[in-house]
């Protein structure tokens, strides 16, 4: 052992984060009519008609989104490797950052399969059932926020412990992650509303909640890539 850190594949894995966000946005978001979603008070006939008329594109979107869902976990593990250079690798925060990323992958995979089920044979399903699958997927993906918060808090608190004069991840970004994890709590009231700012399609519970998370991933990636270079230089 020469004391150097083996950073092979770290960068590749780190780039999986922005790739995930891009694929998720296009496939789950645009092809699946989830960005923005149908408002909860949209009639079941409208949701069902969309799935019947666009079954092919929704299937394609969900299949690709499911294929790339593990990219989030891969990214999360690479960020956890960077965190190991800030705090001891046995520190529980490193494990929580990893498991938070892995759990988030599951909470993307499972609801995506519900949307895919709705698009599998929509001509044979009643309107209400397609609406139920659509609702169920949204309730799961939104209310599973807490597993991602585990990752956000663990990374935020961990990176704040950096004693370097110039930290590998700036303090503002560590705090931003903590803030995002904290903001997710708004999702708790989502099931109570079928329209308005707090509904799943509303300005607070969709536009702000999803965007602040989707911005966090590439931002943290940029600093992680820089950090990997610094780790290789022994900083």
């Amino acid at each position, binding site marked *: 052992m020469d004391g150097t850190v083996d950073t092979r594949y770290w960068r590749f894995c780190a780039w999986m984060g922005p790739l995930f966000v891009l694929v998720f946005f296009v496939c789950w978001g645009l092809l699946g009519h989830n960005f923005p979603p149908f408002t909860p008070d949209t009639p079941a006939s409208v949701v069902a008609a969309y799935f019947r008329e666009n079954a092919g594109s929704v299937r394609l979107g969900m299949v690709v989104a499911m294929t790339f869902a593990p990219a989030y976990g891969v990214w999360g593990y690479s960020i956890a490797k960077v965190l190991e250079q800030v705090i001891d690798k046995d520190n529980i925060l490193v494990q929580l950052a990893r498991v938070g990323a892995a759990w988030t992958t599951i909470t993307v995979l499972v609801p995506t399969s519900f949307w895919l089920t709705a698009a599998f044979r929509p001509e044979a399903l009643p309107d209400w059932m397609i609406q139920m699958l659509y609702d169920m997927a949204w309730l799961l993906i939104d209310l599973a926020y807490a597993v991602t918060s585990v990752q956000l808090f663990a990374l935020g608190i961990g990176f704040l412990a950096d004693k370097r004069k110039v930290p590998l991840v*700036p*303090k*503002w970004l560590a705090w*931003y992650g903590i*803030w995002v994890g904290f903001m997710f*709590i708004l999702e708790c009231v989502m099931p109570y*509303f079928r329209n*308005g700012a*707090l509904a799943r399609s509303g300005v607070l519970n969709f536009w702000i909640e999803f965007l602040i998370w989707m911005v966090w991933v590439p931002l943290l990636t940029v600093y992680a890539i820089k950090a990997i270079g610094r780790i290789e230089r022994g900083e």
Partner: protein
Amino acid sequence: MTTLAANAPHLSASPAELPGDSGVWFFIVADMCAFAVFFLVFMVGRAADPALYEASRQMLDLRFGLANTLILLTSGALMAQAARDARRGAFQRARQMMIAALIAGLPFGLSKALEWQAKFAHGLTLTTNEFFTYYFVFTGIHFLHFAIGLVVLIMLQKVAVDDRMPTATRLRWIEAGGAYWHMVDLLWIVLFAMLYLLRAA
């Protein structure tokens, strides 16, 4: 002893620097931006249906709002004194002031619980109408900030007298905690004015 008056000149922040920790300030600004969006959403809703908002506003008990404002302002003033004490190196006194700020702030929780209980007793809930949706959600999230602030105060009063920690670090965290606690005050003042005082029609 934690009184370090001799170090006081070293503890004074440069006028060009923010007191406390820059990262915490980022959190505070981000949080205030989120609340600014909350306020904007509320005002848009209010402009669309002023009669409903005004009728709902009149169902709030102004006494609770006023009491909460006074409680938080008193607690905030004590916290400001704690930061001043810490800046001049009097960490033991800063600790006492933080404990006083904590005790002065606690009735806010009681008052909030009583106020919400009264609303529930009158059948007013999260889904009664748009005004009460925002009332419960915004004051609920604010309450969460308050609860976190109490935990921060409990931790900081220990930090203040932790001789193993450099004085500059202790001051930084006390000032950062103070900035957060003042944000809790400030957000409440805006919530109080917006929910309880502002006539919509």
